[in-house]
């Protein structure tokens, strides 16, 4: 590793590729990559939470005018295979759920609020349970979390795809920036390159000098971007904590532990992109020399 970076600057690349612009831009890309990776990991956490608890949740609404059917509905529900923890939600709990739409005093409105029965189900769309309960009382309404869980899974998959696309775009933009910086360096040092080419330098000798410089600048930028992403991710994860089912007061609310392994690799990836891109750019340019 030391041989890559502690190299005599024969081509004067510290001057020719000395601007802070490349590390700053790569840093910005690394920052965005950090956000994308965190987003992908967080959506995975969110999906697991929703698919675990929500997919099994079953809610049964019995119309207020059929309240006398509640014991039969409870019995039929308990008799359905896979159903457990079947219970009638207290009126206070139902009022609490309705408060955002109907206000603090739901009872005062005199509305026919249905009786709500909650249970843990086996998953699926609940059609068998619906058919069974409809025979008990026709107005019953069965809702399962499976539909929402499927929607969340689809949303998670699309978020992950977006994050992957963002990472690819970020990598391509970083490579484009390294290409431009390398071309600028070549333009400034073409005379020196031609001299050492004439002295018997291999293409690899010349490309390695540019690649080492580009990799170092990209590594610095990547490190800066990753460091900058840390506090922002902590703030965002605090905002997302309620949706991820963790307490906002926890040390790293909602952030996947995997992120703390991924973030330090971003500078290395940036350095790798810098190295490979500069190698390709310089070797292609050298092709014009005999």
């Amino acid at each position, binding site marked *: 590793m030391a041989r890559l970076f502690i190299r005599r600057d024969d081509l*004067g690349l510290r001057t020719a590729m000395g601007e802070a612009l490349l590390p700053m831009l790569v840093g910005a890309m690394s920052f965005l990559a950090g956000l994308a990776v965190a987003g992908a990991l967080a959506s995975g956490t969110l999906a697991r939470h929703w698919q675990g608890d929500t997919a099994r949740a079953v809610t049964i609404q019995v119309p207020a005018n059929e309240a006398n059917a509640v014991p039969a509905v409870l019995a039929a529900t308990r008799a359905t295979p896979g159903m457990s923890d079947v219970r009638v939600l207290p009126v206070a709990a139902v009022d609490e759920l309705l408060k955002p739409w109907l206000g603090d005093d739901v009872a005062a409105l005199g509305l026919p609020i249905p009786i709500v029965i909650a249970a843990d189900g086996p998953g699926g769309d609940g059609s068998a349970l619906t058919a069974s309960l409809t025979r008990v009382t026709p107005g019953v309404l069965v809702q399962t979390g499976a539909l929402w869980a499927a929607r969340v899974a689809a949303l998670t998959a699309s978020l992950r795809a977006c994050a992957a696309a963002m990472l690819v775009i970020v990598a391509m933009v970083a490579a484009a920036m390294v290409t431009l910086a390398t071309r600028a360096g070549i333009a400034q040092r073409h005379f020196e390159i031609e001299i050492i080419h004439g002295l018997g330098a*291999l*293409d690899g000798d010349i490309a390695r000098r540019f690649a080492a410089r580009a990799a170092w600048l990209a590594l610095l930028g990547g490190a800066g971007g990753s460091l900058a992403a840390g506090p922002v991710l902590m703030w965002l994860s605090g905002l997302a904590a309620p949706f991820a089912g963790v307490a906002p007061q926890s040390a790293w609310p909602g952030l996947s532990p995997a992120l703390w392994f991924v973030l330090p690799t971003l500078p290395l990836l940036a350095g790798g992109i810098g190295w490979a891109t500069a190698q390709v750019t310089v070797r292609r340019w050298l092709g014009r020399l005999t």
Partner: protein
Amino acid sequence: MVIFEDVWLRYREPGRTMGPASDVLRAISFEIPDGGFCWLTGPSGAGKTSLLKLIYLAEPPSRGQIEVLGVDAAGLKRRQAAMLRRRIGVVYQDFRLLAHLSVFDNVALPMRLARRAEAHVRADVMEILQWVGLGAKLEAMPAMLSGGEQQRVAIARAVVNRPKLLLADEPTGNLDDEQAERLMRLITALNQLGTTTVVGTHNMNLVARYPAPRLDMAEGRLRLHG
């Protein structure tokens, strides 16, 4: 040994691959034996620099066969061409020193490219700089040197790897008579050590002072060989 057989070099205008082309070198044939010394003479624009470029593989010929140090230049892979260039020392008219490197580092460059051990680099570079009279200017930058000193640095860089072939393109063009004389003594001394040497010049007084076989060129053709 350098052998040219019916070598032509044709240029088109930059950026064009079709259309009219001009022949810079026409039907060049000659042979320079191992350890030989040869002048390359002719007026400016006669094709001396182009011929030297063909010898150090900076240009491919449009036609003909070139053999340099026993290697057929046609079809050389890039790595092989680079390795052959390491056996050739070139002194350019405009010196071509790297402005951001010291005298020492400029001269050390060919050895470092050849991945010689740094201890050897230091010893050999010191020795060669002493030889060209610049032992006291190791750390000087090229811009701080006179034209003659820069030319001597260029010579030192060309010979530090003990090349089998030394090419010099108008090496005395920017020097006064005294410096030119000193430079020629260095070049002939190298030749006497066994280095095949080709010196391009249009200074016929210099040629007269150092009699040797001559390739005389005019308008891209060899008009005198011997």
